[in-house]
């Protein structure tokens, strides 16, 4: 998202822009997977549009790593191309608070990294408006948010069961609205997740910003299948980037400005791999302060399951975005229907939390249970919330070489008790919001959403507490910028995509002067 939006703006301003993209165009045919692979859900990179290798995940430095499927897109448009489409703004409170666990948890024994934003929300609003204009959203305004002036198209109609849920929420004093979605709906839209749909309704930086800019003859060139081999800073202050263009050919380019937009799991690893970027030594916070939203997923069962149909990314409410000073989240439609694989995954996670790692055999065993449960969930609507995470210095991303000599994304991440407490509080609030409709929670408390990595090159007001300034420029490195979720100072109670686009527009403005 960030890279495409920024490149489009720079190109349109007349700057010669080269986009170096690791991914290639996805092949149309996903690789053949065996029945067993499908059943146990081994990682499926989907013909090259998903990150190719599993992540290595551990709870603390030195503890054993377990593999986890990455929820990362690769290729032009990035994750927003195959996931995404929930394009809500963060709220004023996100930008004006420094959230510390001691504010609500007396037992908290540690501080989070300072997480106030260096930019005022009023400035951020202008960037949000512009990003919304580029991407094109449908939805309605949040009745609780006086700042919500987003330009919104007409969302698709609600099914009678969705109407019932809306009525329930209203009767319980909540303020539901139509969630802000970047989909140019066509009849029969599947609201695709996890693959690129050829109908191309979903808005992301590539199809809504970069492709149109290139069609308007902006001086942008896109190199795909690129692997970086070196980055140096010349005596004249220019960056010299050398890369393999995918054919084995080494190509070298020089430019006064260099922007990293590889995403929060990759941008800090690029800085670590090429210390010349930051004058030979890597700033201490690079890769640290990694945040993942805690992914709450729950099923709400309306009274008539047959009345539930049609588009699913439809509802949101923000009555509990904050609760007694605690950062929570927007509650929104998940936009997916409960499937056997998802439920089996949930059951395995439950088993793992109970100290029982069933491994791959367990995945196989849980599958039939999931298939039975699928029937149970067929008449339920799934909701989700991206519960805010706080940045802790020891939660981090690094590069690790596996036994086969491949560089892998390694994540050290521990969920804090204060997070679990907030999750439990949020669940109480959700049960209350939908009552008397039954609410069933499908995710373990504090399950990190690996698709929302943030904060690994933090934005702040000083180099002591951050990596980049309020415009995304790396402290002390003239002409080096970061334009992805790495720069997030806090995790926000909403999907990161729109904020990434808004910040990219801001950084582009700084670059183009």
């Amino acid at each position, binding site marked *: 998202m960030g890279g495409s939006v920024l490149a489009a703006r720079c190109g349109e301003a007349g700057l010669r822009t080269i986009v170096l993209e690791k991914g290639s165009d996805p092949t149309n045919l996903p690789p053949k997977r065996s029945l067993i692979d499908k059943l146990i859900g081994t990682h499926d990179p989907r013909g090259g549009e998903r990150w190719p290798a599993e992540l290595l995940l551990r709870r603390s430095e030195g503890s054993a790593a377990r593999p986890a499927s990455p929820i990362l897109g690769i290729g032009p448009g990035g994750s927003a191309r195959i996931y995404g489409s929930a394009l809500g703004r963060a709220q004023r409170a996100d930008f004006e608070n420094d959230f510390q666990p001691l504010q609500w948890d007396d037992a908290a024994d540690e501080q989070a990294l300072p997480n106030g934003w260096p930019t005022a929300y009023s400035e951020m609003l202008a960037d949000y408006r512009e990003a919304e204009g580029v991407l094109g959203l449908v939805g309605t305004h949040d009745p609780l948010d006086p700042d919500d002036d987003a330009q919104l198209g007409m969302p698709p*109609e609600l099914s009678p069961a969705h109407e019932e849920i809306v009525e329930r929420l209203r009767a319980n004093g909540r303020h539901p609205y139509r969630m802000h979605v970047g989909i140019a709906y066509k009849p*029969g839209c*599947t609201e695709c997740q996890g693959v690129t749909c050829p109908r191309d309704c979903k808005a992301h930086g590539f199809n809504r910003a970069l492709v149109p800019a290139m069609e308007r003859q902006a001086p942008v060139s896109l190199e795909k299948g690129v692997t970086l081999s070196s980055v140096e800073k010349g005596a004249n202050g220019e960056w010299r980037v050398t890369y393999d263009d995918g054919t084995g050919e080494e190509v070298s380019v020089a430019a006064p400005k260099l922007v990293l937009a590889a995403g929060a799991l990759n941008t800090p690893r690029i800085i670590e791999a090429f210390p010349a970027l930051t004058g030979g030594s890597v700033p201490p916070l690079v890769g640290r302060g990694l945040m993942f939203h805690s992914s709450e997923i729950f099923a709400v069962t309306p009274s008539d399951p047959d009345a539930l149909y049609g588009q*699913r990314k439809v509802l949101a409410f923000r009555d509990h975005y904050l609760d007694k000073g605690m950062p929570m989240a927007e509650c929104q439609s998940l936009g997916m*229907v409960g499937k056997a694989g998802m439920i089996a995954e949930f059951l395995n996670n439950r088993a793992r939390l109970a100290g029982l790692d069933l491994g791959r055999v367990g995945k196989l065993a849980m599958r039939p249970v999931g298939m039975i449960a699928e029937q149970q969930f067929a008449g339920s609507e799934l909701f989700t919330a991206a519960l805010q995470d706080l940045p802790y210095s020891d939660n981090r991303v690094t590069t690790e070489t596996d036994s086969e000599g491949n560089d892998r994304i390694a994540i050290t991440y521990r969920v804090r008790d204060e997070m679990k407490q907030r999750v439990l509080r949020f669940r109480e609030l959700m049960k209350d919001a939908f009552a008397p409709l039954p609410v069933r929670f499908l995710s373990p408390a504090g399950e990190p959403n690996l698709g929302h990595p943030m904060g690994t090159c933090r934005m702040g007001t000083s180099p002591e507490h951050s990596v980049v300034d309020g415009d995304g420029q790396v402290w002390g490195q003239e002409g080096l910028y970061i334009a992805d979720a790495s720069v997030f100072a806090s995790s926000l109670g909403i999907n990161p995509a729109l904020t990434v686009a808004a910040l990219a527009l801001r950084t582009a403005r700084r670059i183009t002067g």
Partner: protein
Amino acid sequence: MNTGGSASRHVAITGATGGIGAALARQFAQSGYLVSAIGRSRPALDDLAASHERISAFHLADIADGTACADTFVKIRAANGPVEILITAAAIYPKAFFLDQDAGHIAEVLRTNIEGVANSVREVLPAMLERNFGRVVIFGSLADMNPMPGSLAYSVSKGALHSLSKGIAGEIDRDRFPNVLVNEFSPGPTRTRMSDGGHAPEDIFPMLLPLVECGSDGPHGRFFQEGKEIRIGESWKAALKRVVLRR
């Protein structure tokens, strides 16, 4: 369970001036359905409309003409509301040996028999999806399996309808639109202008009705001949999966 059994529903029938189409139009009307009859022959349409108050007739000279077809369905919507059930019975069956055909023969048959079906389904499907209610019954045939001498173009066109029907069905998201069902139906030999022997045209309605009146758990993307399902080209793996999962 969502059912399709409400008899006041709106059914559109293409090829309604053919033998089977006309019989279906009358029988649907007699069963309480609101019928939009689409055909090429004006006199036959007039007779049909006069035969029952719940039948209204719409003339369409060339169903393969996308613009003309769209215009007709606009008129149908304006008169009778969104189409809830579509029966595509329009087809041509000119008998000609391969070596006697001129260069345009096959194209003409394919146009009507394939593009005509696609055109009419395209006009009704969006509103069906929006309301999560729709039944599409595409008149098919197994003529493609053993083309009879002189029926080559017809056989080719009916073979194409298997993938057209299954393809359209496969693009419908079952989670979001579970009550929109598309199936292919073959009446078997029937006494019409196209054939001298077989069923009486009136025998077809009861065979076809289950595909219209079934609930959202009814068949989708499947082929039925004379009321019995035939699994065209099913692999042994797919058959095993079906038996094991009792689908």
